[in-house]
């Protein structure tokens, strides 16, 4: 469960914030990468990742839950839900969270707002990390064994 955010809603009201997040996550799943302000990217991240978690579960109930967020107002967004469940979720199958990446790209011309790119992490999980984890575990076990002996 993500930490509740402090401070005022984005866009002025709770309803507007919900719409902003729904639109932005739909665009993120459609284009795999969107450019937005840093504040919006940071607030979008837990929202979008929760939708991906539903997509990984993959049953009808979770599909309807995601549709109620993304495609309740626009029927065309149903294809985005399909894309999320059929293409994005399998790519994230081996990944335990951290489905999105935020990179800062400097300030916007005009209002000097800090901008960021938020993108889906579609690359397969690098085998290196798994090897490192296994190795550290084995080392710990070996250390325990020597202590006991």
């Amino acid at each position: 469960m993500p930490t509740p955010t402090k401070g005022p809603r984005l866009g002025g009201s709770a309803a507007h914030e919900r719409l902003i997040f729904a639109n932005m996550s739909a665009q993120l799943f459609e284009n795999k990468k969107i450019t937005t302000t840093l504040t919006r990217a940071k607030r979008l991240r837990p929202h979008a990742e929760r939708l991906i978690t539903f997509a990984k579960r993959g049953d009808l109930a979770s599909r309807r839950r995601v549709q109620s967020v993304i495609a309740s107002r626009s029927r065309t967004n149903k294809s985005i839900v399909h894309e999320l469940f059929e293409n994005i979720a399998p790519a994230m199958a081996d990944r335990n969270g951290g489905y999105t990446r935020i990179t800062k790209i400097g300030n916007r011309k005009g209002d000097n707002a800090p901008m960021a790119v938020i993108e889906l992490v579609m690359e397969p999980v690098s085998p290196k990390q798994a090897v490192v984890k296994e190795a550290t575990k084995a080392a710990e076990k070996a250390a325990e064994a020597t202590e006991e002996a």
Partner: protein
Amino acid sequence: MAVPKRKMSRANTRARRSQWKATAPNLVKTVENGRVTYSLPHQAKVVTDSAGTELFLEYKGRKVADV
């Protein structure tokens, strides 16, 4: 609506503005191909070709966005 009654003097205006100060950004020093460069930390950098044309934004070896 509250409205100023008197014109603000040039001295008061300038005294207020004298408090506007620019702050220097904290830069990190890196050595790339034997050349020392200073850049903002944790931010994508612009990649240029040898002629100095800006190509794209890069961060940690990944292409992030077009310029």
